[in-house]
């Protein structure tokens, strides 16, 4: 019995090594390397200068028991995800549905809602300060209130999320609008002929056909919630009620503090959370496609 072996020419091998090698090097060097280094550093108390000493799970223990900003950040990240997912995203869908009905001036509304998306979140942060500042802000000046919108830690996260949501709504709206335009009008007509009400036609017929769009929007929403950083950093460096995990990582590692081990531990937790979402999403996707 002869085994048929496929022989690669020297040229094939070279191409293979270069082609695959580059990808592997880039992948390992830029993704796996730093990820594993973070995980390893999270078990040390390195300060960026001195010797690196292994401290095991101590950073995680300190984080959970004696670092008040951490729990505040976890709470805020969850709130952020909830707000974007349950308020901003559905509202974006609602706007898209309305605009899809070819209202008068729909182009104007569409532009107005989409406008904030072209702004970076850091810029949205600066705009938010112009609106919310307690001494000079528009909101207090117009309403005559004296609320410390950005300084009071029981309200500042909400008004900042509102500003972030302002941008998110436009983003989601434009994606859904594109999706709705692609829905075959015949489907809606058929539903209408079958006696479905407006709401039934939307929820039973149109919405299910938007499934690919829904998946994209869901992923965008989760990513936006976990990577939120710039808006709170622009407002008050992510302190005093506006803590987020991403800010704490930066604050500990990049600043003069250089608690690299400790900051890495926070980064690992953020990574684990993100992985949780990604794995759930991918497994769901593969299961349904099979």
């Amino acid at each position, binding site marked *: 019995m002869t085994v048929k072996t496929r022989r690669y020419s020297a040229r094939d091998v070279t191409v293979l090594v270069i082609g695959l090698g580059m990808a592997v090097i880039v992948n390992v060097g830029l993704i796996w390397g730093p990820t594993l280094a973070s995980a390893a550093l999270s078990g040390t108390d390195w300060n960026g200068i001195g010797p690196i000493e292994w401290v095991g799970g101590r950073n995680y223990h300190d984080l959970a028991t004696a670092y008040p900003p951490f729990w505040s950040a976890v709470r805020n990240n969850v709130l952020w995800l909830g707000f974007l997912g349950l308020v901003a995203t559905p509202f974006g869908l609602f706007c898209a549905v309305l605009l899809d009905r070819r209202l008068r001036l729909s182009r104007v509304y569409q532009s107005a809602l989409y406008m904030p998306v072209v702004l970076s979140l850091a810029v949205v942060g600066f705009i938010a300060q112009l609106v919310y500042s307690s*001494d000079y802000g528009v909101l207090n000046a117009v309403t005559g209130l004296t609320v410390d919108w950005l300084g009071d830690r029981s309200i500042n996260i909400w008004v900042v999320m509102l500003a972030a949501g302002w941008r998110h709504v436009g983003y989601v709206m434009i994606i859904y609008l594109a999706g709705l335009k692609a829905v075959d009008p015949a489907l809606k007509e058929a539903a209408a002929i079958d006696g479905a009400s407006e709401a039934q036609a939307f929820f039973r017929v149109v919405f299910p056909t938007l499934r690919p769009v829904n998946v994209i929007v869901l992923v965008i929403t989760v990513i936006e919630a976990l990577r939120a950083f710039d808006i709170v950093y622009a407002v*008050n460096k992510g302190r005093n009620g506006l803590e987020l995990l991403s800010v704490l990582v930066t604050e500990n590692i990049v600043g003069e503090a250089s608690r690299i081990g400790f900051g890495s531990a926070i980064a690992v937790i953020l990574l684990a959370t993100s992985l949780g979402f990604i794995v759930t999403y991918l497994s769901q996707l593969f299961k349904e496609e099979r």
Partner: protein
Amino acid sequence: MDRRMPISRRRLLLGAAAFGVPAVLAGCGSGSPSTAPGRSSGGGLGTVTIGSNASDEVPKKALETVLKGFTQAVPKVNTVDHNTFQENINRYLKGTPDDVFTWFAGYRMQFFAQQGLATDISDVWQEIGGDYTQAFKDQSTGIDGKQYFVPFTYYPWAVFYRKSLWRAKGYEPPKTLDEFTALARRMKADGLVPIAFADKDGWPAMGTFDILNMRTNGYDFHISLMAGKESWTDPRVKQVFDTWRGLMEFHQPAALGRTWQEAGQSLAQKKTGMILLGMFVAQQFPEADRDDLDFFTFPEINPAYGTDSIDAPIDGYMISAKARNVDGAKALLRHLAKGSSQNEATKLDPGTLAASSKADTGGYSALQKRGAELVSQATHLAQFLDRDTRPDFASTVMIPSLQAFVGKPDEIDSLLVSIEKQKANLFR
């Protein structure tokens, strides 16, 4: 101290490389090397590079002017944005630092000297020592007793007010805490917010904590508290927060949403009566109004300490451990230590004072003269909370904690327990 198993450096070099990237960016970032203008050939000591955080216009110009008078070597300035410089100082000093770099006196200098990142300049101090008071020398001395720092300029913290407003209302600078409280009450009755206050950036409240602690418990307790040697749950610390809580009703409300600039403007607009801040508050006053600005030192709380200590952060220069041109760098430090050099800087930057006792105070503005007088009366100069303690403790523990206190001044006990717990994790 418990011994833990050290990890080989090589194993985590990859991690170091990953985190090293920002340092490279910062190192060759915003500042392009510029030779001091007006001179093509330098003196006999070659080129000296200077890493400067003087990115604002006024301090930058001041440094350039001072360097014009330096002829022994060719100075080359690398200016990096102030905050970026500060945030990347570790990686900067570990990487390829300049020969001379701008830095702060006190614990923050000692921290880097202890890590072996600075060059001992005790020999320079043999020559310049006579130009400085003991307080300045102490702030330039490392834990090993050697000098690592040359003071250049500094600025005192005090309670600032507008003379015209106080004259009109008949207010007098208070001498004791009771007088201070009575004055604040009177201002409130007159429809003013007594104490302008802002802590959005997290550090201005440190100034209030420092002065209350030094007035209540003295300089030595303050320094050992900052060094992690005292417990934060000590009744003496609680006393400080209790006093502060008593004064809270006179502080401008909504401080956590306000920047110090906004608070300074409220003083300029005569909406508030006074403000505890560094002399740089003058920046918020239009040129014409600056002569109307005056100050008094925070009043006495405990007669045992009187008003013997103030916050007066000193800025100056150090030589990095990796300096290539040490002789040139030392010559430059001798030049920067001259009173005449510092005078050129204080002339351009009216919010600062010359550190050298030999500096000429004749050219000072009225405010600078008062500042120099205030400092000469103080026995101890503290460097400000974030310069007197570990940087990680100041930024990741004290900023959130003081903001929590400002937001909820009544929850002192639980706050102090939390600070103590976090302190124990850092100072181990």
